């Protein structure tokens, strides 16, 4: 075996240019696959992060009926039972964001608009989505204040400025009328029109009073340290909470349309990736064929003087293994450099595409991911492709006509 290993290794360096070409084809394939997948994973992660931080959070605890009928009557009781369960899993939970929200009418003078009145604790909202940074006028309330902060679109439609008063009217808990008069203390600007034209915020305690639902929440958002913990944490929370009253939902369950869109996109990406792998496979195959036909005579001679076909096949397989390994390893290193640079300096989008991303609350960039699994998985795929393609010379060795080959 040692001599076969020696022959394979020395053969690599015998014709350096030939080896360089083959290794390069594997290396560029790995760089291409890694860069493509990094971009796709990066943009997907970016969109998921956008959804999680701007909308659902990682998980939500809701009343069991809230999802079917999101009304104030289905606000959950945020009492000792829920707090004890959350405490049990505090190692996994980064922080929680309590909200109570309902649909109301907001009016000023003769103007009336439909709005979503949400009770929040600003500190937690800021941690989740930096809400206060959207303030364009006035200032964010503290938990003990009792004034409202409204979105810019609402302010425009009602012709309200900071210091004016608005009247809110809606449905409270168990048929109570929710009615209140609030001074506007600040105006927020959202890029997403749906938010900009509808959002009205109150301090949580004030909103609970407004909705006549003390200690109740419509959504208890849970943010975790590691997104990979979400499925397990959701199962554990659901098991520990009374299923008759509480439902634990992941962001995927809360945003099924977005998840379906991601899955459709994933299917397209997979198809594209397979096309890339096929192209890459043929690229490597081309260089291996070139290498093989240059060496047919040499193979014939080796078989003539007594080397067995299986031994020659082992030499070819070892050469393929070395080339694939060196190619993939250098591809991963070079791919990491490329991707890391793009990760630090993402491609900035302009024009309509940038506007669309801004509307969705996303930064208008092509984000790249440097998750280790991309490098490992893509490296392995290219390695396997190179190995499969590299088996062609091995197969050829077993079918080689010794006399014909030696005569070439």
């Amino acid at each position, binding site marked *: 075996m040692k*001599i076969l290993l020696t022959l394979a290794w020395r053969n690599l*360096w015998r014709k350096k240019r030939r080896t360089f070409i083959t290794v390069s084809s594997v290396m560029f394939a790995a760089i291409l696959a890694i860069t493509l997948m990094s971009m796709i994973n990066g943009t997907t992660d970016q969109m998921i992060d956008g959804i999680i931080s701007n909308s659902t959070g990682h998980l939500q605890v809701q009343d069991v009926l809230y999802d079917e009928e999101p009304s104030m009557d289905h606000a959950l009781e945020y009492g000792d039972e829920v707090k004890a369960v959350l405490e049990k899993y505090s190692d996994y939970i980064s922080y929680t964001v309590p909200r109570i929200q309902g649909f109301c009418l907001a009016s000023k003078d003769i103007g009336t608009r439909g709005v979503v009145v949400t009770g929040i604790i600003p500190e937690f909202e800021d941690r989740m989505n930096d809400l206060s940074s959207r303030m364009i006028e006035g200032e964010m309330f503290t938990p003990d204040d009792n004034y409202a902060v409204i979105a810019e679109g609402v302010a425009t439609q009602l012709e309200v400025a900071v210091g004016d008063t608005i009247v809110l009217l809606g449905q409270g808990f168990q048929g109570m009328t929710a009615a209140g008069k609030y001074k506007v203390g600040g105006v927020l600007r959202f890029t997403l029109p749906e938010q900009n034209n509808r959002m009205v915020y109150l301090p949580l305690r004030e909103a609970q009073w407004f909705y006549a639902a003390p200690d109740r929440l419509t959504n208890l958002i849970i943010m975790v340290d590691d997104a990979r913990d979400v499925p397990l944490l959701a199962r554990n929370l659901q098991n520990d909470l009374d299923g008759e009253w509480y439902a634990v939902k992941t962001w995927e369950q809360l945003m099924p349309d977005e998840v379906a869109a991601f899955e459709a996109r994933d299917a397209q990406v997979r198809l594209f990736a397979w096309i890339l792998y096929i192209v890459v496979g043929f690229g490597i195959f081309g260089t291996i064929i070139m290498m093989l036909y240059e060496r047919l005579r040499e193979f014939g001679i080796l078989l003539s003087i*007594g080397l067995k076909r299986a*031994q020659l096949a082992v030499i070819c397989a070892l050469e393929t293994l070395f080339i694939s390994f060196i190619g993939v390893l250098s591809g991963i290193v070079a791919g990491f450099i490329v991707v890391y640079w793009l990760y630090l300096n993402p491609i900035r989008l302009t024009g309509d595409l940038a506007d669309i991303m801004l509307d969705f609350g996303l930064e208008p960039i092509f984000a790249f991911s440097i998750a280790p699994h991309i490098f490992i998985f893509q490296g392995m795929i290219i390695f396997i492709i190179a190995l499969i393609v590299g088996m062609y010379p091995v197969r050829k060795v077993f079918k080689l006509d010794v006399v014909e080959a030696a005569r070439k």
Partner: protein
Amino acid sequence: MKTVIKTTDLSKVYNGGAAEVHALKNVSLEFKQGEFTAIVGPSGSGKTTFLNVIGGLDKPTDGHIYIDGVDLATMKESKLFDFRLRHIGFVFQAYNLIPVLTAIENVSFIMLLQKKSKEEMERRAKEMLEQVGLAEKLYVRPSQLSGGQQQRVAVARALASKPDFVLADEPTANLDTQSAFNLLDIMARLNKEENVTMIFSTHDQRVIDRARRVIKLVDGAVDNDEQFDR
């Protein structure tokens, strides 16, 4: 003298498109131990085919090749590889050394495949390289040797494993006159010292003049078989 190779009614037909080519026609020959034989004839007369067939590289269409009483014509390919490894030495026109191995590694290569001990391999390889006048070039790769030197390494490789016979296909065709004479001197000396049968296919009059037996093939058949006292 012991018979090393015996062929009976050896025929080889190639199906080259519309026409069949009879490369060998009923060739029946015997080669004794220690013979130094040249197979001569014009191009296309069947010299190389004859060497390929008796070397087990190619299968005859008809007839038998007996080596040590074993019929190569009916042997399976897997057995043939092993048989060639243990019984036959090859010298090719284009030297065909393994480019990535040094001279001593090339000479040891067949013994290595035969699983000889390291000490025996090294001793025999050095001995053979000394015999062919390359004691100073043990650790040199083929690309650093002249054509004549490479062919001498090839001869050392063919003989190192002590085969029953050596087949040499036009061994001097690529060599200049001086290198060809040197090689022939070495082969003739080793033929006697090692008592190994050597069979050459050749056009080269210098080889023919040194051979003790000359077999002439014409159109795949034996035209003449002469012995010389040299």
